[in-house]
């Protein structure tokens, strides 16, 4: 009996040590004051200013662009939520993540298997790509990033890859193995979005692997983060994820990640150091923070999928 008690004591000791190790190594604490929710706007509907499942967001100057996915349009607001214009109703099937490059709006169209390009005023300019799984082809693309030289980076959700293409859509290279989901050996698991920093580092939201991959311009992996060893261990702690649906780089160079199942945005330095987390908890059955963008003044706008609204946050003091 004494022996059994001693074994139990030792086991408890080992478990406590393990918990301590996990806490100090893999659970970070916030490095900044908490963000404050300034306002929300929008509700479910199809009228101007309403949303039916917002899925993407980006900011340029004083304008906030939102993918209003089931309404098949882009809506543009000022930073206080006043609607300025809408467009894309005749061109978009299921718009997802957005990015702006050289005064053009790039929209990943999930159902059309194309990247659609518009002027910032809403004039349709061109489409890039075609449906398929071959080089330069798309199968449900969820996001897009555009480099200084015009190259595009496009994640394919079920093709398990991120392609780099020239501006005309011709194939350059890819990360991940087409059609093969995985965690090791250069594989991706349902990549959802991508973002590019000013120095050309590519950040991949490896959605179902619950991790971020940072890729150098020469194509090599710089770093990765998300839970212990960034190997598809999900969780609610700081620096851990539970299905990443969006990623963007702020003007300051920090990385913002939409951590969908955790109903929050997490903010990191470009090398993956956890800085902050904020969000609105969902009441179910789906979740809130699906896409995020930071404005020049530090305000952060979040597309809130579950509540059909936009959240506006400002840094705490």
């Amino acid at each position, binding site marked *: 009996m004494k022996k059994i008690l001693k074994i139990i004591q030792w086991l408890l000791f080992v478990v406590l040590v393990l918990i301590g190790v996990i806490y100090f190594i893999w659970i970070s604490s916030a490095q900044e004051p908490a963000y404050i929710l300034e306002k929300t706007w929008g509700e479910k509907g199809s009228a101007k200013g309403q949303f039916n499942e917002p899925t993407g967001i980006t900011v340029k100057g004083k304008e906030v662009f939102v993918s209003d*996915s089931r309404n098949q349009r882009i809506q543009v607001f000022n930073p206080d939520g006043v609607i300025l214009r809408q467009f894309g109703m005749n061109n978009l099937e*299921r718009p997802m993540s957005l990015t702006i490059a050289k005064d053009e709006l790039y929209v990943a169209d999930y159902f059309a298997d194309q990247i659609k390009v518009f002027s910032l005023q809403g004039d349709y300019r061109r489409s890039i790509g075609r449906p398929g799984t071959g080089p330069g082809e798309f199968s*449900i693309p969820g996001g897009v990033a555009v480099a200084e030289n015009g190259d595009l980076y496009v994640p394919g959700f*079920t093709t398990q890859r991120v392609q780099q293409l020239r501006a005309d859509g011709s194939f350059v290279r890819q990360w991940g193995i087409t059609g093969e989901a995985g965690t090791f050996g250069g594989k991706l698991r349902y990549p959802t979005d991508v973002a590019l920093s000013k120095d050309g580092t590519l950040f991949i939201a490896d959605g179902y692997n619950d991790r971020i991959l940072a890729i150098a311009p020469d194509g090599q992996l710089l770093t990765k983060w998300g839970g212990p060893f960034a190997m598809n261990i999900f969780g609610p702690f700081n620096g851990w994820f539970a299905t990443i649906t969006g990623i963007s780089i702020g003007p300051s160079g920090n990385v913002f990640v939409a951590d969908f199942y955790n109903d929050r945005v997490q903010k990191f330095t470009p090398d993956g150091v956890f800085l902050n987390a904020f969000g609105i908890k969902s009441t179910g059955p*789906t979740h809130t923070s699906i896409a995020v963008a930071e404005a020049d003044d530090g305000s952060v706008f979040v597309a809130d999928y579950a509540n059909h609204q936009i959240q506006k946050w400002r840094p705490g003091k």
Partner: protein
Amino acid sequence: MKFLLISTTLFFMAITLLWSGSGFAAGTQYNMRVDGLACPFCAYGIEKKFIKTEGVDSVDIDLQKGLVIVKTHEGKTFKEEKLKEIINDSGFTMKSVTEKNL
């Protein structure tokens, strides 16, 4: 008498039209239970696969119940294996399916 005859004829014509109209609308509804539908990337993927499948009239996702609801055009039916295949291609597993005539 003439009025009664015309009214009766019109009545039966209306019934016949309604009958044939409902015949055109008759398809099948499949309610498929699929786990993990809370993420729109997944739900949209399934929705798109069905929309692009010949014979599908409409697709609805009931997130609360975890259901994919597919209605087909008149006379179009799917075998369970085909439904499973479409869901599998979208990266999910179909847990069960019920069907009813519309």
